[in-house]
């Protein structure tokens, strides 16, 4: 079980801020493929990976990063703080 978090318009498109996901996906990209296969709203949120960022256990990461040992995955658009 892995915690998956969504922020900003990713959260709005998917319709929830976080969920627990049962997965054996070896990488972030594989997890995204699994999520997209579930429902249209996931496919809509992940349609353009270039406009998305991912954090693994609260550290910025990349889509090809392995998920082994990861407890928390977060998807969000590029940050706009400051």
């Amino acid at each position, binding site marked *: 079980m892995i915690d998956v*978090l969504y*922020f*900003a*318009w990713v*959260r709005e498109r998917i319709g929830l801020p976080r969920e627990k996901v049962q997965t054996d996906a070896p990488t972030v990209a594989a997890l995204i493929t699994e999520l997209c296969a579930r429902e249209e709203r996931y496919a809509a949120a992940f349609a353009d990976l270039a406009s998305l960022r991912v*954090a693994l256990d*609260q*550290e*910025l990461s990349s889509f090809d990063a392995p998920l082994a040992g990861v407890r928390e995955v*977060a998807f*969000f*658009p*590029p*940050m*706009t*703080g*400051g």
Partner: protein
Amino acid sequence: MRLSVQAEPFDLGAEANAFAAGVTGAGAVVTFTGIVRDNAGTLSAMEIEHYPGMTERAIAAITEQAIARWSLADALVIHRYGRLAGGEPIMMVATAASHRADAFDAAEFLMDYLKSRAPFWKKEIGADGAEWVAAKDTDEAALTRW
């Protein structure tokens, strides 16, 4: 080093004074304050979302890097989240160093990194709806100078 992620407003002047009073031996103090632009009286509001936990970690990592690189006497970062009205302060940074170039460079570095590497997302709320602020290519490009 004081880092705060908070919903409450802060007082720029009180923060600047407390920061300056806390440093000894520093000849230069720089502050930057970001304010919700109140364009031509169209009092726009802003909703700031963040990623509790990661936000604090990212801000601490960026600030520690700035302190080490520019030998800062001290640094301060305050960033708000939640609903902000036009004219309200969004965030501030302060840096203290022996010489002005270090204080200026460190403050600009903090701003560039907070803007693109700390997990905050701004939504502008106008008269005709709300819209997520898009990240600018120039903000990402600004990181390459450091």
